[in-house]
């Protein structure tokens, strides 16, 4: 009796599984064969800039390693400090065929009230590298170490735009060293570099690729790096952390997002792809070695957390600067 019951139950279960399997089969194409058509990669900035190079290199590496059954089509949608491109992606809610890379403007433009969408309107996928900032001073200024800056009564630094990573790091360094550091907004990385080399500002927070050639030429001297650990590209530059300033850890995450509400399977799918990109030789030679970023893979959950933290940092900075309430 019990046996029969259990058998019939078992049969029923088998039937149920079969039924479920049929249902799953019917639904399967959506999940299993996820990318059915080409994926649009929206670049919210003009061609030739850092974001453009990053996005196109990722697309190139994915194509080279043949990780996707479809193509990635990069498309520049500049305007409104990133607002135009990011809105284009965000409004395609739950559509897993739109993808974009994050940038500083991804956070700052919405906070400044310049964009209808914010980081909450996106699904983080994963990040595949970290770009630290290197704090530098002109060699002629005579500052050898971070502590030497304490002797200065007041310092100035250059930033691109009012709210930037350089402005954020200047605030953090200022608090840590007890020295006033005023950030002067310029219109581009090149202008900041010119001001630094001309001695019109005292310190700078540079991207690795810009800092590298100047450090090699001996025109700028590195004082500290903003990553948690030393960068392989700059093995001799100490981190702020090592120097006893544990509150100064801030890097730019090179990662990808999709519109809010894409299914969890899609996120897992992309985590897999991006992990392969991050660990590939092609990515190393085409990006890491060229731009001197730190290789690092962070999964969707970690990346989401980093996005929220970064946004909070910018928000705090803007409140401190009195830009927003």
């Amino acid at each position, binding site marked *: 009796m019990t046996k029969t019951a259990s058998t019939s139950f078992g049969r029923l279960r088998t039937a149920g599984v079969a039924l479920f399997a049929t249902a799953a089969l019917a639904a399967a194409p959506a999940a299993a064969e996820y990318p059915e058509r080409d994926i649009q990669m929206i670049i919210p900035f003009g061609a030739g800039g850092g974001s453009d190079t990053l996005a196109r290199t990722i697309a190139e590496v994915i194509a080279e390693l043949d990780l996707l059954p479809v193509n990635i089509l990069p498309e520049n949608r500049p305007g409104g400090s990133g607002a135009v491109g990011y809105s284009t992606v965000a409004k395609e809610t739950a559509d897993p065929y739109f993808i974009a890379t994050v940038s500083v403007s991804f956070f700052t433009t919405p906070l400044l009230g310049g964009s209808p969408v914010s980081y909450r309107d996106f699904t983080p996928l994963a990040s595949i590298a970290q770009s630290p900032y290197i704090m530098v001073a002109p060699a002629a200024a005579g500052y050898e170490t971070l502590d030497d800056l304490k002797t200065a009564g007041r310092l100035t630094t250059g930033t691109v735009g*009012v709210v930037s990573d350089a402005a954020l790091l200047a605030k953090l360094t200022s608090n840590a060293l007890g020295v006033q550091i005023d950030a002067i907004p310029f219109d581009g990385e090149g202008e900041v570099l010119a001001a630094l080399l001309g001695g019109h500002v005292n310190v700078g927070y540079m991207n690795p690729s810009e800092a590298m050639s100047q450090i090699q030429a001996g025109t700028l001297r590195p004082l500290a790096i903003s990553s948690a650990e030393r960068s392989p590209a700059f093995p001799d530059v100490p981190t702020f952390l090592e120097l006893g300033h544990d509150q100064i850890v801030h890097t730019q995450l090179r990662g990808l997002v999709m519109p809010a509400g894409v299914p969890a399977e899609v996120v897992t799918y992309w985590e897999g792809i991006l992990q392969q990109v991050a660990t590939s030789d092609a990515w190393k030679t085409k990006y890491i070695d060229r731009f001197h970023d730190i290789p690092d893979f962070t999964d969707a959950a970690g990346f989401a957390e980093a996005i929220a933290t970064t946004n909070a940092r910018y928000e705090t900075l803007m409140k401190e600067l009195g830009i927003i309430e």
Partner: protein
Amino acid sequence: MEVLALLWNGIVAASDPAILMCTLLGAVVGLLIGALPGLGPTAGVAIMLPIAAGFGGIAAIACLGGVYYGSMFGGAITSILLGIPGDAPSVMTVVDGYPMAQKGEAGRALGMSVFGSFVGGVLGILGLVAISVPVSQFALAFGPTEMTAMMCFALSLLSVLGGRNAIKGFVALAIGFWLGTVGLDPIAGSTRYTFGSVDLFDGLDFSIIAVGLFGLTAIFTTLEVSVDKPLARYSFRSLMPRFSDAILSRWQLAQGSVVGFFIGVLPGVGATAATMLSYAIAKRTSRNPDAYGTGIVQGVAAPEAANNSASYGSMIPLFSLGIPGSATTAVMMGGLLMVGLQPGPLLFATNPDFVWSVFGSFAIGNLALVFLTLALTPLLASALFVSTALLYPIVIAIVVFGVYAIDYSLSSVMLTIIAGAIGVVLLKLDYPAVPLILGLVLGPLLERNIRRTMISSQGDLSVFIERPIALVLFIATIVVLLVPVALHFLGKRKIAADEAEI
């Protein structure tokens, strides 16, 4: 002379067929993009970047360079023929070039723009190869304080462009300054006059405004006149360039090249400001300043020489220091990175062959553009034989396309049309358009640098006279402003500023 030998080696290296093809491709694309209203060198270089990167190495950068100086040649074409600036650095070419075309001297004006571009190009290349190291150090000496003084000096020279009514000129300048404040406040981070629109967040692009204010205004005003009106006296001679004009304008060519070069070197200033300054200097130093703006070759020579030599000047910080001083050179720097080179102070030392070959390609490209554009001149000039009823609808379509292509935004097209409508109003009320553009170009530069200086000095105004370069420039500004007044009271000749008309 050693540099000339190196440059010659570079030219030989750049004559390699593959590199030559890429140089010419870049130059032709640049010519077309420059001629297309709205799209300028920055957009052109950016558009070509992914394609050029595929050529690799020298060919890639030779191609991108070709787009850059090619667009400086091309910008003059629509400026002269239609009164529509092909790109921002050719705005000043409209002032004398368009009246020349209307007088039936389109070929002469186009020819002059080619000679001007060529002379500016040659002198710019020589400056780039011979004195880039000292010049780049000179550029670094210009911080926010010096830039502020430089802008004041430029504005004092430019007051000559105000038109015959000084008050109306200043009103137009003030409107330009005001329009320059639209968008995100670059120093404090708040938004100004955006009325909550995302499209105005980045401010007003002056090339968009210039296309509307000059080009569409010219087209709109023709609605008042009969389209059957004969446009110009057609003669074969009017289509041909005149070589004697180059001799006639030799001083303006030399002056424009030198001014363009040094302004081009300064980070963040740009070729447009250089053309305005060189035009103003040409007019100020002329025995007959009133003739400027009526359609004379000298008025085409100065800005065309300036914009080409400025393009080479702006490459100096890029190649010798690794600093992209303008939006266009920033894109070119992206190109250098993409072909695996690290732009920086060591580029010359580590990759001399590369750098000299690229410079060699500039010389070849510049020469090739002269023959190409001179050969095209009669064909282009005959565009004026087309009835305006046919020509203008086509032109409007091209303008709309060109402006839309800047960032694929319909709001840019709307802005151009609004600027065109405002231009008609200004024209009817006899307010000059040039000071408005001037304000829009120089206003943001002046504002930003004053505010940067004030942050740097913590509000102390004495920095402006403590720094020697700034002090000299301020003294020069005062001299420029006071000399006409002094002359006036001494009963000598009247000064151009009050009399001349643009």
